[in-house]
């Protein structure tokens, strides 16, 4: 499934770490605090637990949304938006 991770984290260290974890999980950075990519249920669960441990539950906000391919296709993307095919893992290699 396609996973969105959006966050608002006060502490610098925690914020940097969350970004790093998202990248390591295989998500693409579509905006400064917004990641997107394809994960299976176990990977998503693991990511959620890892983020949970880093954030301050009193202050920070993190959203993890699921989406399927059709819903992603029906999204409106304006301006300098990301490559839809890249995040849904349809592009296998960037260079040929």
């Amino acid at each position, binding site marked *: 499934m396609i996973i969105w991770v959006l966050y608002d984290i006060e502490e610098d260290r925690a914020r940097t770490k969350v970004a790093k974890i998202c990248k390591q999980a295989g998500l693409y950075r579509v905006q400064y605090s917004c990641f997107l990519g394809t994960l*299976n249920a*176990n990977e998503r*669960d*693991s990511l959620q*637990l*890892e983020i949970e441990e880093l954030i301050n539950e009193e202050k920070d906000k993190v959203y993890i949304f699921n989406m399927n391919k059709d819903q992603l296709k029906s999204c409106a993307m304006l301006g300098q938006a990301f490559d839809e095919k890249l995040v849904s893992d349809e592009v296998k290699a960037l260079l040929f």
Partner: protein
Amino acid sequence: MHSFYPSQIIEYLYCPRYTYFEYVLRIPQFEEKFYKVQRGRQMHNEKLERNKNYLRKKIGVKEKWLDQYLGMPGLRGKIDEVLELEDGTFAPLDYKFAEWKDRVYETYQQQLYCYALLIEENFGEKVNRGFLVYTRSSNKIVEVPIPEESKAEIRKSMDAMLKIIGQNYYPKATKFKRRCLNCTYRNICIQ
């Protein structure tokens, strides 16, 4: 004689090729690098510290032994808790860093079957059920029946595993193709 851990038997029952790749070819899975595995291990240590004297009244526990490392020919393993119940039988209890998803997964059952064998051998008492504690669902406790056939099944797998390890025998892969999707060895396995 070779002696197996319950986890090795569970891997074998998932797919016999695991035994071949991990214990004949010695290709590691690096499972200790997975975050959930780390958290689970940490949780086990915390539980051991905290639950020292607590006896579970609800399921009728008379006595308990923590963190028992038991062995018998062909099998060895560490059981989180060995319980003596009010009806005189014994039961293994295992903590899971997992959520309760309305059914007991086969792998958890198989682990309890292995523990049942170990307890019967070492304590000399009957075991006909086991317990699982789901720590991510506010420590929900679930009872799992342990029938005689299942214990025999475990013994049978031990023999099959000895053949793989002793004779470097390359077994047939599991017939459940869905298991291959998530397998750590899918890149090197010949289908």
